[in-house]
């Protein structure tokens, strides 16, 4: 439940940010992260931007989140990966 999802800030107006999460645009509150600017990547939790992050942190978290929502497994276990070599 505490998982926050990375998103790119597209617009900010009156403490409401328009962000892009996995290609989908939606509104989030910027109330808890007033220092964020357009173009920043932010972690979004329960409709609120919580922290400014690096872009690269985004990818793995998105895959993990998809699997938690029931998507099929997208990575091998490390053990399986090693065995494949």
């Amino acid at each position, binding site marked *: *439940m505490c998982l926050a999802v990375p998103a790119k800030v597209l617009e900010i107006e009156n403490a409401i940010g328009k962000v892009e999460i996995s290609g989908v645009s939606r509104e989030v509150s910027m109330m808890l992260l007033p220092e964020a600017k357009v173009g920043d990547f932010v972690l979004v939790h*329960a409709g609120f931007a919580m*922290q400014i992050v690096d872009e690269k*942190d985004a990818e793995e978290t998105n895959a993990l989140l998809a699997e938690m929502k029931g998507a099929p497994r997208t990575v091998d276990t*490390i053990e399986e990966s090693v065995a494949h070599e």
Partner: protein
Amino acid sequence: MNKNAERELAQKLVTEIKTMADKAGRKLRFMEVCGTHTVSIFRAGIRQLLPDNVELVSGPGCPVCVTPDDYMDKAIAYAQHPDVIITTFGDMLKVPGTKSSLGEAKTNGADIRIVYSPLDSIPIAKENPDKKVVFLAVGFETTAPTAAATVLAAEQQGVKNLFMLSAQKLVPPVMEALLSDAQVRVDGFILPGHVSVVTGTGIYEPIVAKYHVPGVVTGFEPLQILRALYRLVKQVVNGEAKVENEYEAVVRPEGNPVSQRITDTVYEPVDTGWRGMGVVPRSGLKMREAYKSYDIEAVMPLAVAELPAPKKTACRCGEVLRGIVTPPQCPLFAKACVPTHAIGPCMVSVEGVCAAWYKYGQGRFEYGK
């Protein structure tokens, strides 16, 4: 980083963990206290990869799982009131109370709406001025500021029919409760990533110092978790106990001060009950006196007759959450209790330890490991 490089690094880290752990001369046991870490550890198969003298155990990191039956019973009782609309995150719907679940209440006609953000409750309250809209404020430090900010937004917009049913919980006090529990043995903690985004790393310092047990904050990628484990093993071997941060790109030492201030404006610490652990001192949040008009339990207390009497169950979720037993040691696991027909909350939630064992671990773990 490409996949091959990642594999090589993982393998190297595991070797380093083993070499370091051999110096400890005993079996080391580390606990993760975040449900998303639990899922990530199982997903990457980290448990099977570790040497025999390093063991991972899951703790009370799933908010839905640690919420006791009586909270669900209250939520269901409020949902039965014809003038109440419940708003909630979707993962609460299937959580069993003593007799039924919110999902069953919804099927039977209760007005229960799934929201993505607590803020979504505000337009619902505005559209239904003759109803009381009650948000189920369940979660850890990451979620508390979002509920608190929603209360402040409701106040600012003059919305008077939005309320919280609060079961906000705090991670450091429950870590302390685990360390004081003679049945629980832990040599160090993998500290939560996104809780720490809000709290910062300093919040763990007093516990780490008091109990001389190391902690490392980390992210959710397998390599980050392995690096955190290496740091934990190294601290134990060197006789150290400090808080380290393996997630520096995201977690700042001071956390998110705005979130902390907003939470503190609306909430104050309170003793609260955890599933399987009983009441833990100052481990929850209750609404301050100034915000009591947003607390449904203050505004519209339930009558005792509205709540079912507690019942006995064979579900061992409470012990699973303390790392005392593993899910296969529960008589219900993978038999009567499966994700499609979950008996306990540890199987209901995607972050639940039992659900993770079932999805990623079934048949691939030795009994008890």
